[in-house]
């Protein structure tokens, strides 16, 4: 039993504890305490990770623990972390804590709401530390179902439609992943021995080339659906816009990262040759997502749609960074995942806060809010600036890392893809500034708005935590990139070896 198990055990325990609580107040406090402790736990893990690294432990995955689950099928509870998963864990725990904070005013079925939130987070935590494909899939599914309920029960607008669409599309993605995983499983004993789901064992197995070519699209597209890969992104706008604030934060901040993480950790690591083979196709899809998402955002009138489409565009950067297959671009992709997770969580949080006050999300109905709610307005602007990639905030460093990495591919195709991706930052600036100008600035259009209150303590706390994380990454990016580098190095080594084998 090592401390890594606590990462998934603690959410399970706290979910149970929430079920035992009485009254909304107790539930809220319990979830807040639980998620704060979880954050502490993750920080402790990070500390332990650094200590081990400093002590000279250079194994790719650290703090491993392995429990047999179904030995006859090669399934085990194998857990371990590298820098990439640690970054994701930190992201998750920050977003969860803030998600709990901004949901303070949920009064309908409070207990169930928080229970599902914590359950969702447990899925994410488990996913990021699993080194066994079966448990990885198990936790992935665990993270999908609560979303359906969160949107269906506490959502707004066409919530049933959105919940159904989201759940079905993500389930479809899961089905693709499952096919891919089984394919990998049954191809894992080509050199004799039992088939296995264990990622570490699989990573040294060479899956036959034609099997890779068939299985890779399943896995990549399956995880891609989670990352809102074009053209399977349409769950994102509807899902995000109907979801309650915390669920939007989780969806964009954590859930979309499950996909990116899976693409890197499972699809590219296990099938490097196929990854190389399909690389250009992914780049095309990613570029379409980036530009098309950005242009589609420009036409949106609903704040949540704006952020949802911009998420599609930003997650395109993640895929682009992955498919460039250079170490720098890969580091950039992971940084972009973290950065986008924080930034979009902040954005959804502040949109939710504005919506709670003004009861509208239409940009046309709002104006001059900065004067009435200076705190929320400033938070909105900071989130927007991060989204458009302003230096000093996290978006800039991750995008630039991706660009620098992508530019290392000197052929015309990759160059053009990079330039197109760069071009999107202008479009991003357009829609962000338009939205900010419309909503926050200008004369106050609606007299009722004058009486609105600025952020309450919980909202302030959540915003400050997220902003601090964003600024920390933006000002000291070497922390994050240093964390990610060893993991990215391992993956790039596998991919480079595969090229040599060819």
């Amino acid at each position, binding site marked *: 039993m090592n401390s890594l198990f606590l990462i998934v055990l603690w959410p399970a325990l706290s979910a149970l504890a929430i079920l035992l609580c009485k009254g909304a107040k107790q539930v809220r406090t319990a979830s807040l305490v639980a998620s704060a402790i979880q954050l502490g736990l993750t920080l402790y893990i990070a500390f332990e990770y650094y200590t081990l690294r400093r002590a000279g432990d250079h194994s790719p995955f650290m703090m491993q623990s392995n429990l047999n689950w179904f030995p006859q099928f090669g399934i085990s509870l194998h857990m371990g972390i590298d820098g990439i998963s640690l970054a994701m864990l930190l992201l998750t725990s920050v977003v969860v804590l803030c998600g709990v904070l901004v949901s303070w005013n949920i009064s309908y079925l409070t207990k169930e709401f928080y229970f599902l939130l914590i359950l969702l987070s447990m899925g994410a935590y488990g996913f990021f530390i699993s080194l066994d494909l079966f448990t990885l899939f198990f936790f992935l599914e665990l993270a999908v179902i609560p979303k359906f309920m969160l949107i269906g029960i506490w959502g707004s607008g066409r919530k049933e439609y959105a919940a159904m669409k989201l759940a*079905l599309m993500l389930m479809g993605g899961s089905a693709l992943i499952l096919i891919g995983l089984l394919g990998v499983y049954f191809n894992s004993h080509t050199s004799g021995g039992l088939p296995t789901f264990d990622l570490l064992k699989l990573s040294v197995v060479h899956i036959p080339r034609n099997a890779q070519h068939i299985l890779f699209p399943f896995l990549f597209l399956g995880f891609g659906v989670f990352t809102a890969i074009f053209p399977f992104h349409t769950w994102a706008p509807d899902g995000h816009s109907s979801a309650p604030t915390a669920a939007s934060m989780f969806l964009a901040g954590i859930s979309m990262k499950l996909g990116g993480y899976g693409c890197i950790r499972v699809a590219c690591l296990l099938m490097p040759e196929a990854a190389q083979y399909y690389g250009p196709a992914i780049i095309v899809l990613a570029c379409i997502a980036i530009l098309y998402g950005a242009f589609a955002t420009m036409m949106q009138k609903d704040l949540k749609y704006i952020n949802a489409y911009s998420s599609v565009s930003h997650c395109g950067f993640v895929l682009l960074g992955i498919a460039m297959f250079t*170490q720098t671009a890969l580091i950039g992709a992971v940084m972009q995942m973290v950065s986008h997770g924080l930034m979009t969580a902040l954005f959804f949080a502040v949109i939710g806060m504005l919506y709670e006050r003004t009861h509208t999300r239409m940009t046309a109905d709002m104006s001059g809010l*900065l004067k009435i709610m200076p705190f929320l307005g400033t938070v909105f602007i900071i989130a927007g*600036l991060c989204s458009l990639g302003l230096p000093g905030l996290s978006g800039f460093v991750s995008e630039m890392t991706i660009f*620098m990495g992508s530019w290392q591919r000197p052929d015309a195709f990759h160059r053009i893809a990079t*330039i197109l991706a760069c071009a999107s930052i*202008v479009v991003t600036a357009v829609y962000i500034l338009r939205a900010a100008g419309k909503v926050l*600035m*200008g004369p106050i259009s609606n007299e009722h708005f004058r009486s609105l209150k600025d952020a309450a303590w919980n909202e302030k706390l959540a915003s400050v935590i997220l902003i601090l994380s964003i600024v920390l990454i933006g000002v000291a990016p070497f922390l994050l990139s240093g964390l990610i580098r060893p993991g990215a190095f391992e993956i790039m080594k596998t991919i480079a070896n595969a090229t040599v084998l060819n």
Partner: protein
Amino acid sequence: MLSATYIALIPLLPLASFLLIGLLGKRYLKMASGPIGTLSLLLSCALACITAFQYFFQAGRVNGVFEKITVFKFAWLNFSPNVSIDMGLVLDPISVMMILVVTLIALMVHIYSLSYMKGEERVSTYFSFLSLFTFSMLGLVLASNIFQMYIFWELVGLSSYLLIGFYFDKPSAVAAAKKAFIVTRFADLGFLIGILILSFHAETLDFTTLISRLSTPGSPWLLSISSASFMGFSLLTWGLVLLFVGGAGKSAMFPLHIWLPDAMEGPTPVSALIHAATMVVAGVFMVARMFPVYALSCPAALQVVAWTGAISSLFAALIACTQTDIKRVLAYSTMSQIGYMMFALGVSGYGGENGLGYTASLFHLFTHALFKALLFLGAGAVIHYVHSNELSKMGGLRKHIPITHITFLVACLAIAGVPPFSGFFSKEEILMASYQHNFPIYCIALFTAGLTAFYMFRLYFSIFWKKELSADSHAHGEGGFAMMFPLVLLALFTLGAGFIPFGKFISSDGLPLTSEVHLGFSLIPVLLSLCGIFMAMAFYKKESTLPDKAATVLGELYKASFNKFKIDEVWLKVTKGFLFGIVGRFAAWFDKSIINGAIDLGASFAEVVSDTVRMLQTGKVQDYAACVLAGVLSLCLYFLYVWM
């Protein structure tokens, strides 16, 4: 001697004041925010002066050449072992000159703002943004790494956005801020791609290494970048031109200038600091920083710089003659003067006498910063007095605001290039450089010089002479001491700055360059300027019908100039009409109908199938029994068939 600690304090003091005022100002330090900001800048300015003194007179010169001294740097973001974004401070003649200019003008603007922004509710926000800007600008000029420069480049863009949009309840201010940010962002795209191209081939982002690698003839890096070509031009040309696009955006060069006139929506001191003296010359600074590469390896790119500068300077001067908003006239004149600096760089060569253009350009940058800041601050005092930007609302103010009048006149004479004001000297060098290297540009420059004198004095006479204003409507007097002090000080600088032997300190190769004024040569430009001044006097000193007559004679030209040659409209067509209207709408439509439609179609397909299949469920027991029977019978038949 040159110690990293206090040099680092030069940009860090404004940063500290930004954080302090920005975080606590609104609640706790409302009254103190102005003084805090000013004080931090005062310190910063003093440190900059000390640094400049030490650099220029003690530590900077090694064997007679000004060295580039990297005070400190650390790796901020590593990409690969040799490519990293470093944060560092580098001292060389131009960066030292720039920190002097930036801190000095910023200090003046701070002092001026103490009085100008009095009574403004969000005064702490204002000062924190000013501090942020100063910090970013200092970071930009001291950057040791091209990516560091890009970072601060974006940050000055942000502070400019925030300050233009300071009066954010005015829709026009919001629109102007947005426009400024987006246009410069678009240009920065060029900058970014330029960085990518150059750094890929030079395998470094560090300025010193980058420049030496790319400007040493025959170095492997230079060979690699010059041999790779795209669409007929070498990647070096592409990289440098794209870098320049970034610079052109920030420096409001044609056709990316459209944001600058609108940016005048910001508070006037801000216009003085950002949109006249410091930020808009960042493009010039960047080209000057990369100058060895431009001049030694890629003269073609330098030609682009030269012609863009020349066209912009003429173009802006033409427009400035007809505008009626005092700040817009100044904005166009800024654009025109920056065009001067650009083409001075463009016509310059590297080293020795050939590098005269380089020295001239930076000299003009220096003097222009002083007199243009003075002009803007003066304009601020005028606007403060009459509460309007429109020339038609002004006139005869010379008796009401005498100090402003005199200082404004000094600045006008300087910009018109009348000896012995500072503008004369720097302009003279520019003209000399272009005369030596590029005659067509020299002609453009001469004509522009005349135009400059004309429109500046049109402004001057319209504000201070022309008609007489009734005194009673403007009971309050000229601004207080805090407003007058910077005006007077800057006017004194404007008078004296021309006599600085600039070439001794700043030259393309670091060796001192002596330049003298050739009386014979300067005769023509000075005469042209005087012509312009007298024409303006004839037109505008008293109310007369001459301007209208001239307008009718010029006809279409006048109209085109008044409408700013419709460049805004062209951009609007491209962006709003094409990108937003067509591409954006198409993307949104495509998403809604095609992508979403396909998903919904899948869902309705499932629905149709299930609708059909469920018809089997009649709910009648006997139907089910019949089905079972049919099943059993067919199984029986099947097995019979198999066994038989």
